[in-house]
């Protein structure tokens, strides 16, 4: 067991983890934050995305010990951020969520890209979201929602 300390959704936490434990399992099974989902296990689908020091990370292939000393934000934390409502509003208006399984990860990824000014046109949205699969929507609603957000600028 290794003791790690991290800032999780704005709260300092320390806990003992096995060196082999994945951040996804620690979040879901030990802390009970189930917003990040498990699907492909090989860093393709993106549904396990959380933000580590603000950057999107596939928590299914990220060791919990690597999060030591870092800031981890899951959807449970981000939904309290003022930036959440703007993204949620666009996703709702455009019906950009169906089964919802990929949605929290999609929202976190969109937030990080918007914040960093990386979503400037349709091409950059396609590039930026290529690592987040959605099997239901066919992406059209997501593209429309994110294009609207991108056209409004970062909005703080």
């Amino acid at each position, binding site marked *: 067991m290794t003791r790690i300390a991290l800032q999780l959704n704005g709260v300092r936490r320390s806990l003992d983890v096995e060196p082999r434990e994945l951040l996804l*399992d620690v979040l879901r099974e030990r802390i009970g934050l189930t917003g990040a989902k*498990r699907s492909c296990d090989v860093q393709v*689908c993106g549904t396990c995305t959380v933000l580590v020091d603000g950057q999107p990370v596939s928590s299914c292939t990220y060791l919990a010990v690597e999060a030591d000393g870092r800031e981890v934000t899951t959807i449970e934390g981000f939904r309290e951020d003022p930036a959440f409502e703007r993204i*949620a509003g666009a996703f709702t208006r455009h019906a950009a969520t169906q*089964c919802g*399984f990929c949605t929290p990860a999609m929202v976190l990824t969109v937030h990080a890209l918007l914040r960093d000014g990386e979503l400037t046109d349709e091409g950059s949205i396609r590039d930026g979201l290529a690592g987040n699969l959605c099997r239901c*929507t066919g992406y059209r609603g997501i593209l429309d929602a994110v294009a609207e957000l991108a056209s409004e600028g970062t909005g703080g």
Partner: protein
Amino acid sequence: MTIRTPERIVGEGAQVGRSMPRVDAGEKLRGEARYVGDMSVPGMLHGKVLRSPFPHARIISIDVSAALALPGVVAVLTGEDTLDIDPYWGHAIKDRPIVAIGEVRFVGEPVAAVAAEDEATAEAALAEIVVEYEELPVVGTLDDALAADAPLVHDGPIRPGLFHGLGTLPDRDGNICYRYGFERGSVDEVFEQAEIVVEGEYTFPGVYQYAMETHSVIAQWEGGEVTLWATCQHPFLVRAEIAALFDLPLGRVRIIVPYLGGGFGSKSYTKMEPITVALARKAGRPVRIVNRVDESMVTTRRHGAKTWMRTAADRSGRLLAREARVWFDTGAYADNGPRVTATGADSAPGPYRWSGVRVEASCVHTHTAPSGSYRAFGASHVQWAGELQVDEVARRAGIDPVEIRRLNLLTPGEQVRPGGKPLDADLIGDIRKVADALGWDEPREPGIGRGISVGLLAAGAHPVSSAIVRLEADGEAIVLVGSTEMGQGQRTAFAQIAAEVLAMPAERIRCQGTDTRFTPYDRSTGASRSTTLAGLAVQRAAAEVRADLMEIAGKVWPDAGDAVELRDGAAWWKGERRSYPELIARRFGLSGGQLIGEGGVHPEGTGSYAEGPVFWEVCIGAAEVHVDRETGVVSVRRTATVADVGTAINPLLVERQDEGATMQGIGNALLEEMVYREGMLLNDSLLDYRIPTIEDLPPEQVCVIVENADGPGPFGAKGCGEGAFAGIIAAIATAVADAGVRVDELPLTPERVWRSSQGQPKEDAKG
């Protein structure tokens, strides 16, 4: 973009026909929506399944002692532990043991299962189970299975399952477990005399539905009852199968279905429930099993299929006869293979006026993963083959692909197949609309191909649904209906349907997941049936509540008669208003109470497959592709689909359904294939099995919503969301052919397209 036709104006206060936001959007965006894998119950163990590494082998021995000795392991389940019951299940054919008994028939078949205090321990214990196998001959492909001296995947008699719904099941014929066909007119004579005959053989691959949430189940035994939290599209059918397997009354099996992370057919009927229930029974504690992707991929998949087909026509392009033989690879166990086989056969003729048709479809076992339902099954397998032939006839007759369809399409009321429901849609109108939406008549640049396709899918499954609507004392309503929310948006649609009847805002209506203890019976969630059938039950249940409200209003205003109007959550007469809470208080006094309505749908005849379908789902798609002959890369530049939905309860959600189906169609047409060699699955991970990403989204997409109010559902609605899948696969195939590349095998990978465009053989000569 969307086009609605005919144009409609949604009146003020109208609930049906408006694109209200999904009622579950907030929960899902906030990460609050719960899926089975997010849930746990007190004392719960974690289950893992040991799966066969061989496609076909005899199990000589299983030694679980080392696994049991691991700290944290509570129980290990093997086939022996299921011999006190009849351990075979399968809704169509009871051919599948809970855990392998003496023999394994595909790579991935459960051989044992471990329940442990945590998942890592359970996983470690799997490695400690020692199984001795004797490998047996493998039937790896349809051709292997149909060979004269083929080893038999099953040799026992057919045992019909509880829900095959296909009349009497005949005996096995070699590896064929089910056959379905029909014939009318003088087929052979027409072919002998026809001026144009097109003939070909077509291959459709096995594919993985990839619902992002894998199959997940929690099972808990308590007080002689078993409770499951499970990823079920058909909770009531699973309840019946579990009750039959474990010899329990229906009321002692309780199935709770929260949100599903996608289904697309992969969670229809029974899947991981029996093994989880058996493991929990053995462990004496609740158990949760959450499949990994490589496990769900072999839990069920879409059938690979081979189609031989020929089409006869005269030189003016009048279609005369079609003959088709289709073989569906159902894998080691039947799963939904018989129904897929029948539905595929029904789709094989295409919606044309034939003087002769002969179709024979077979459901064939191989030593590969069992195959079941996937969105638009049957139609997806065969429509593209038939439509390629129609285009070839058009080419030889010298007429346009849209024109040949217009000449030959069935019109409403005409027979689609002998017996059964006649055509209930305006296909000629639909095909013109989709052609216009694609820009069919615009000039073409070099390398560009355009394709258009039309087909029919027998939709609705068995017409049994029920619903309860409760209007609470505060004027909010609750809808109880056993249909599963798996992304399609039915909770939103049901809220809108109930709201329209109750003349109140849909935002004030709650509809939640199924709990078979409290939710009334619904046959299943699939075959595009929820809006149509469960929606009709909701409409009827709401109508009972409405009648109650009118009755109370009649007591408030004895002279009003029928002149009372219900509007915006209140009754009105001569400028006076009584809110629903006031009306409810009038009936029950101040202490509250509830108005309860019940509604149901049941078959008018026997409900048999032959009498059906509930409606014919229209499978129309159009596509414009660019084919790079140097690299073989096909890019889809524009798509158009028709959602012929009768009435769009929520137009935005209809559009999103078509877009989702379009993307899955692009995946099936261009990318997706489970690659098997000798019964071994070579690409059992998303690294090697590629599904569409946002980068594959076509630059332009049009969805035409057609609302002719000709559906059997509420307000003239009929289901959608599947037809576009089959339509787009066929549209892409015909578009690639239009660009000059011969197509007879999907997916249209760059290698296949390049080989075909260069006149190269299909594969290098090697195993």
